[in-house]
């Protein structure tokens, strides 16, 4: 039995498989949230947001999405990326109560994350992770083992948290990171993500041995699967980032309106 989803090279079937490492991870996240919010009771909306983030992570990491994405289909691997790096982190962050964050603000333990969450550094750090974790040698090397697959998933999650922190943190990390600049920050990321998209979508040959040589699932060829992965990255990632930019724009517009009244 595997504890974390990884490429195994065995034929795919739709019979359920347990991944206890994923359950343990999800349980640890919930316990950490409970411990972190002790003494700073979160609102119902914050709990719902955090629970939504945890649920998205669970879906991305567990069977069948986790299993298909780690060893069979590059397109599902890309769905995992979107869920883990772009969708779950803003919900997790938005689920943290402000009072609890104020309590730990300035603590020594947060000095490194605090440094990485500076907008320009966060943008570069996240996109470096995106490019590195889509590099063929990295993907093929990591997906072959459970520890490697775990490392890749955690890199996405860590990168996603750092990327989203300046945008959605309940405690303004950078007071001089106005809403208009946040929109530019998100749009800049869609531009930077074009690089892996172009490589995946327009490559003549399959990039990843893991998916090219995987036992077949469905009728997609390895090349079609890879092109679909590129489109998912482009359309799915673009939709998430542009939607977030749209929401921020709406807040910005409202705050400007309120200020002129």
């Amino acid at each position, binding site marked *: 039995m595997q504890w974390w989803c990884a490429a195994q*090279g*065995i*034929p795919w079937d739709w019979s359920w498989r347990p991944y206890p490492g994923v359950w343990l991870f999800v349980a640890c996240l919930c316990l950490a949230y409970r411990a972190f919010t002790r003494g700073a009771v979160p609102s119902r909306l914050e709990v719902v947001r955090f629970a939504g983030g945890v649920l998205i992570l669970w879906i991305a990491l567990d069977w069948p999405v986790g299993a298909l994405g780690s060893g069979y289909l590059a397109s599902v691997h890309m769905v995992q990326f979107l869920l883990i790096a772009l969708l779950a982190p803003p919900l997790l962050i938005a689920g943290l109560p402000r009072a609890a964050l104020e309590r730990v603000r300035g603590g020594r333990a947060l000095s490194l994350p605090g440094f990485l969450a500076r907008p320009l550094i966060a943008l570069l750090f996240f996109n470096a992770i995106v490019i590195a974790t889509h590099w063929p040698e990295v993907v093929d090397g990591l997906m072959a083992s459970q520890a490697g697959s775990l490392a890749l998933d955690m890199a996405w999650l860590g990168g996603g948290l750092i990327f989203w922190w300046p945008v959605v943190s309940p405690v303004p990390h950078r007071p001089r990171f106005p809403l208009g600049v946040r929109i530019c920050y998100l749009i800049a990321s869609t531009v930077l993500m074009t690089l892996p998209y172009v490589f995946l979508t327009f490559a*003549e*040959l*399959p990039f990843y*041995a893991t998916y*090219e*040589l*995987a*036992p*077949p699932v469905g*009728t997609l*060829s*390895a*090349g079609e699967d890879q092109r679909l992965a590129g489109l998912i990255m482009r359309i799915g990632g673009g939709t998430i980032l542009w939607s977030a930019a749209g929401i921020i724009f709406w807040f910005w517009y409202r705050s400007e309106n309120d200020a002129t009244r």
Partner: protein
Amino acid sequence: MRPARIVAAAAVACGVGLAGSACASPDAAIDRTEGTGELRGLAIEQPFEAPEFALTDSRGRRFDFRPETAGSLTLLFFGYTNCPDICPVQMAVLGAALDDLSYPERREIEVVFVTTDPARDTPDRLRSWLDLFDASFVGLYGEMETVNEIQAGFRLPPARIEGTSPPPGAGEPYLVGHATPVVAVTGDGVARALYPSGVRQTDWRHDLPLLLRLNRSVSKPGGEAGPSGG
């Protein structure tokens, strides 16, 4: 992918038991360092004459291997359509790699798939399965004993139904252990190289022009390389 990685991939395939005994026998004939040298596939150290044999193709016609493939670069594979992993991957990778070739180059290559599961691989099933990869792939079937004799002629281990004794009843699922390499046979009827599971499109793209060049040199009258040539 370097030959060492291909050997490693083949070893992994053996290790997980999917290829059964498929990898042990061919290894003895493989020169990983010399032979054609440039190939990413495994050059056969001492190229040998392919056996003469005749089977029935998926359209019910007799297919005499040597005369039918004379002059062509033939890529021969033994497998079965219910194979859950190696066969569809080998065929898909090969089919995609052949798509990259020009029309004249593509016409010089014949892909022949011999079923190691004649009980389930009816001609229709064989045809429709091969059509998923390339409609020009030739599907052959015959008695299991005959197919195993042919495999022995290519120095490949025999195919066998795995893990069932007595043989499975009608409709009962089973796996067939079989050799995993694609055998490259030049137009003079000489087996030159093996491509075990783990070979990628990029490897075929590298090797096919080299194999075609070799094929042209040995297939024309008075060609240079015989069975012992490179």
